[in-house]
């Protein structure tokens, strides 16, 4: 114990220093560490959250851009397909119409020809009839005139005789 006092260790002072430090510890803990550390902690979590959100937003944006591109590509392909199909079908339809028209024209020609033939025959027939009538009428007239001339001659002859 003698050596302790020689190097200046004094129970009262030692206790005072311990108490001093413990009070400082309490004050620092209560008024500085606790509020500050919890504040720092909350800020760290908030920053982490913010970073996470930003990352998520970026990812979502990327996804949206990707899906947009995909939709556009799909739409383009669809449009191309529709256009091709329309072209094909219109070509086919045109071909069909052409064929139909040709067929119709053929039948029309055939019909017209048949009609023409019939018409001619009818004309012939009519003309024949008319010619016959005319021949008969003429013959009659000639004969009559001849007969009349015969009769006159006879009468003349009688007068003369």
């Amino acid at each position: 114990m003698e050596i302790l006092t020689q190097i200046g260790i004094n129970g009262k002072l030692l206790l005072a220093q311990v108490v001093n430090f413990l009070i400082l510890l309490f004050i620092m803990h209560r008024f500085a560490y606790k509020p500050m550390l919890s504040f720092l902690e909350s800020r760290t979590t908030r920053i982490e959250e913010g970073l996470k959100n930003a990352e998520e937003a970026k990812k979502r944006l990327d996804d949206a851009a990707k899906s947009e591109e995909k939709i556009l590509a799909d739409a383009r392909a669809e449009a191309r397909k529709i256009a091709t199909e329309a072209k094909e079908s219109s070509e086919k339809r045109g071909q069909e119409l052409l064929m139909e028209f040709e067929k119709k024209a053929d039948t029309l020609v055939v019909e017209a020809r048949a009609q023409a033939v019939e018409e001619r025959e009818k004309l012939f027939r009519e003309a024949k009839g008319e010619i016959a009538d005319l021949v008969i009428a003429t013959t009659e007239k000639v004969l009559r005139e001849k007969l009349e001339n015969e009769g006159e001659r006879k009468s003349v002859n009688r007068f003369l005789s």
Partner: protein
Amino acid sequence: MEISIIAEKLFSIGNFSVTNSLFIAVIVAVALGLSAAVFSRNPKEIPRGAQNVIEAVFEGLLSFIESITNDRKQAKDFFPLVATIFLFVLFSNWSGLLPGAGTIGLNEEHAGRIIMVPFLRGPAADLNMTVALSLVSVFSVQIFGILALGVRGYVSKFLVAPWKKPYAIGTIVGLLELIGEFAKILSFSFRLFGNVFAGEVLLTVMLSLVPYLIPLPFLILEVFVSVVQAAVFSLLTIVFLKMAVTGHEEGAH
């Protein structure tokens, strides 16, 4: 020139004599507590001015502790004690470097001799302060150990029955560790006291030999030594705390 290993008495309150080192220790504690409390109040989301410094110091200390404990929760448990030790030792040491420390004082007569009693004396240049800190540190280590392992678990670190696994070796190692716990008090207090007191002696001697320029490098060195000593004291406290809360079985595997 008189350099006393014992802190000098400044004044008395009742029959309690206040020494210059205790006086400064109280002033440092009050200033530290007040400023920390003031600057930590209503922290702003976007730090400004002093809050930046406080945040940097606290974050730095916490990550320093965590780098040793490898455990966030333990780091937070240890933080108040370790941070207070670090800050108190650091500012105590720096306060002992203020101009006038050890040089401005009253001449008093002691045992027939005139000695100068300085008003300012670095608190750590007084064994009472360093022993007090060591006691607090080592006691806290025991308390943390008991809280973490339970009384039985903690005591079994030191008192190992000689008929159990490592037999006599375990018993002897346990006893050595028990002695080591007491040795920690000595090593803690004399390391800090020795460094700071030596620094003060060095500065006083240099100052009395060559008053200008020459003491400056030594002053800078002491500023640095103050940081190192504060760091060493708190670092060792962390290490001892970590060792105390780590169980025997845990450590063996």
